[in-house]
């Protein structure tokens, strides 16, 4: 079970985020759900890079070669991903604030100016 559990958790988090996004009744909540979707990508990346018995790839406290380390590349990718996620969230929230101002609602059901 442990062999696939991390991957299944990543899949679950992504899907549950999508579900929340599609059924959300509040745009701020929707942006939060998008952040949940993104959490799935961190989990997947780091799970892929993990190595049983490996330590973190930082050699400040032990000599190189002494122990196996986990994959530093996925960690770098996840780091980038965290930053990207935070900035996208910020930008979307800025747009949400403007939507709230201009439409006087945050309920997607009431935003019906763009259709057809």
């Amino acid at each position, binding site marked *: 079970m442990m062999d696939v559990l991390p991957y299944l958790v990543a899949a679950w988090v992504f*899907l549950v985020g999508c579900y929340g996004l*599609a059924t959300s009744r509040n745009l701020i909540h929707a942006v939060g759900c998008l952040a949940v979707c993104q959490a799935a990508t961190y989990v997947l990346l780091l799970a892929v890079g*993990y190595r049983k018995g490996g330590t*973190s790839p930082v*050699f400040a406290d032990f000599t190189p070669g002494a122990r196996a*380390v986990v994959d530093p590349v996925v960690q*770098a990718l996840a*780091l980038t991903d965290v930053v990207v996620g935070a900035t996208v969230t910020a*930008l979307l929230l800025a747009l949400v604030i403007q939507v709230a*101002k201009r439409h006087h609602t945050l309920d997607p059901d009431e935003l019906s100016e763009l259709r057809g």
Partner: protein
Amino acid sequence: MNRRLRMWVLLLGLAGTAALLVAAAFRLPAFGTGFHPYGDRAVHEALARQTANTVAAVNFDQRAFDTLGEETILFAAVLGTVVLLRQARDERHVEPAPADVAAPVRRYALVLLPVTLVAGLYIVAHGQLTPGGGFQGGVVAATALHLLYIAVDYRALERIRPLGLFEVGDAAGEAAYLVIGVAGLLAGSSYLANTILPHGTFNTLSSGGTVPLLNAAIGMEVACAVVVLLARFLDQAVEIEGEGANEGENEGEGERT
């Protein structure tokens, strides 16, 4: 589209996607057993260049171009937020009222402020050695300033937060990263090459060639960017009022000092 139809489309889609992801999960290498040719090479090259924190080596040396893109996304998002949350013509500024802060809270926050600031700078400076680096340190340092909001009030925060300067700092951090990249090019190697400085001694503060420099550039950009970002959101939440509270039409042109 009515709610029921949306639900059907969604559930159908989720079921299909779930089947796909689960099938893939069982074909992935068992957790903790994958093989990592790139990762192994990255560790090897990081050590060859005297960078103890291999994640920093990947971020600021081997895949420095990714980090350039990442910082640019941050830069763009902050610029976008500044543009999107600008004071519209039908809005005006109101001065927030000074707030009373309980004495213990004030003391706690004021003690924490310098500690957090120093912690942030420490995290930036040791990026190539220990976990952390420009990004994490920058965020911590930027958060430190906002303890002032908790400790005193919004106006105190505004006094020590010359926004214009932080916006320039944000751009300067981005520019510094780009210019360090060009330096590699001018030195006869290629863009963002980590060959213009000696790589130093393993596990010391000056090791890693340009890694600490890029780290510092990022630290500066991130700290400034987060301050600007939070300032825009705070402005909206605390200061800017819409036409609803605005009695006269032309009060909206309120200039900020």
